[in-house]
């Protein structure tokens, strides 16, 4: 395990940015988001949760993948793929876990090559959460924010003025070596302190207000939950905006569109939201005519459909929807209504 003094971090950023595109949680106005680091950027490693999840780095909101040109009856197609190598620093355990959930979909056969490429070129550096917030419930989905999350190439912990650094993968080891003496070896005493820190975080998790959420106790099979009457009530306050789906680290539905750029054009895919009325609209009609069906689709997908297909819930308990939904129609409420609560707590 290595360490670095926090006041030397900008040296570290600089060094990494020499060879990679470096994404960091950066403050802009009141909002913190992962953006490309440049000298002088206002890095914020304290905010637990960026507004946008880092999924937009590995699965961009808009991704052009094809350029086309028509000449008479001839059609020319050209594949666009120009992603460079990048590093994302400061990804929290919940967001790291969300990458695995996206992998399940995109790396399932037939493999999404653009996504695969994007994953290959990325190096994920996680950051443990010292102080989980009241809206956090990652623990309910089996995520331990104090540990090195599976899927991170390097994991870090903050302790006082220090940042601890541990490579988790081959990629991570290579970067760690390349950084050379910017990083120092951890001494035994500090290792002990780190262990205490981890235990401290674990204790704090139990006291969080949403700690009792437990999707495992949701009862009923697919059709029973589908036909449940909770949807009749729940959907009514939904405004039909797409905020929950766009800030969600696990939502991955997309649309494919063409842009006519006069002389030639391009095809891109972009995030889409099952909350939007035109999501399933076809020439002959729409199978989901009201917001009830749309709201149901979103939560059924997260808690039932995805689980049936990939043996895992499509939620990581990051709390973004809990905090951001303008009318508090978040997954916590749905899980609770479906009976997903631990009784003993």
């Amino acid at each position, binding site marked *: 395990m290595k360490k670095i003094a926090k006041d030397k971090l900008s040296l570290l950023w600089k060094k990494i940015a020499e060879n990679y595109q470096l994404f960091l949680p950066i403050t802009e106005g009141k909002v913190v988001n992962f953006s490309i680091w440049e000298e002088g950027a206002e890095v914020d490693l304290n905010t637990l949760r960026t507004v946008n999840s880092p999924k937009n780095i590995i699965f961009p909101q808009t991704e052009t*993948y*094809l350029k*086309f040109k*028509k000449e008479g*009856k*001839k*059609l020319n*197609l050209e*594949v666009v*793929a120009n992603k460079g190598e990048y590093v994302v620093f400061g990804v929290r355990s919940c967001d790291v876990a969300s990458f695995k959930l996206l992998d399940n*979909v*995109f790396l*399932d056969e*037939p*493999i*999404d*090559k*653009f996504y695969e*490429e994007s994953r*290959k*070129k990325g190096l994920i550096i996680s950051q443990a959460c010292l102080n989980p917030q009241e809206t956090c419930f990652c623990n309910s989905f089996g995520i331990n924010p104090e540990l090195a999350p599976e899927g991170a190439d390097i994991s870090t912990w903050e302790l006082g003025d220090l940042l601890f650094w541990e490579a988790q993968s081959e990629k991570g080891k290579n970067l760690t070596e390349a950084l050379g003496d910017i990083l120092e070896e951890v001494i035994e005493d500090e290792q002990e302190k780190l262990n205490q820190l981890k235990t401290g975080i674990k204790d704090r998790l139990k006291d969080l207000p949403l700690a009792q959420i437990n999707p495992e106790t949701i009862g009923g099979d*697919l*059709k029973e939950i*589908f*036909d449940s009457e909770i949807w009749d009530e729940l959907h009514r306050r939904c405004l039909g905006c797409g905020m929950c789906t766009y800030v969600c680290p696990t939502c*991955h*539905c*997309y*649309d*494919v*569109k*063409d*842009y*006519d*750029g006069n002389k030639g*054009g391009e*095809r891109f*895919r972009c995030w*889409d939201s*099952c909350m939007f009325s035109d*999501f*399933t*609209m*076809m*020439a*002959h009609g729409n*199978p*989901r005519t009201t917001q009830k*069906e749309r709201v149901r*689709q979103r939560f*059924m*997908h997260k808690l*039932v*459909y*995805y689980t*049936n*297909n990939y043996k895992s819930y499509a939620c990581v308990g990051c709390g973004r929807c809990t905090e951001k939904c303008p009318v508090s129609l978040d997954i916590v409420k749905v899980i609770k209504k479906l009976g997903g609560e631990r009784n003993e707590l």
Partner: protein
Amino acid sequence: MSCNCHDDPLVPVIAVVDRIREDTADIKTFQVKKPKEGLPFTFKPGQCAMLSVPPVGEAIFSITSSPTQQNFLEFSIKNVGKVTDCLHQVEEGTEIGIRGPYGNNFPVEEFKGKDLLFIGGGIGLAPLRSVINYTLDNRNDYGKIDIVYGARSPKDFVHSNDLYHNWVQAEGTDVHLTIDKEFEDWKGNVGFVPQYIEELNFSCDKVALVCGPPIMIKFVLEVLEKLGFDQKQIYTTLELKMKCGIGKCGRCNIGDKYVCKDGPVFRCDELGKLPDEY
């Protein structure tokens, strides 16, 4: 690190619209092949392909030709939306993009030795035709074939050459046509497909393959049940809005099944297990 993004399932290959036939006022059948010759890919009856007409977009269509037709793919397309409208304006010799094949197929291997009942309405004949031609090209593998087809009027019959000639002349094959409303010079049956099936009173030892407008499918299934068909004997093929064709973009799901990947062909007992949202 080499990028193999050009192999991505979302990337279409170039194909050429070789010939176009006007079936009805709003349906055209397109023969599509590789720019030189041959099929862009191999497929099985009932599968779909995504056709691209940049800069308008992509849409998914069922392949209406049989895999036994090795020279071209055929698509029968009704002009209903943006992409289909653009396709209808395409001229012969125009290059388009194609990717596929997508979805599952009608289990033609399992059908071997059985009598088959095809029930189609309107443009719903498109996916069935692939199976019909496939079974007729492998005639000895299958038993009696009945084809029930209905449309608004004789003018709305797609593949009328098949309906009036090829299939009628095929051995052990009966074609039963019906139209919705009286039409001049029409000597055949008048009435909706479900009633006609009831009148024809088919024995329930067949496999039924149904495709047509949702409302027709609904009533046909009721009639078939009445005639004694088991749900496991009935197959249908569905369509919902699709974008990726590979079960990732997340909009064509019925419950946990994706029509583009786990469908479009569903056996009715499987369909019964899914939520009613299609």
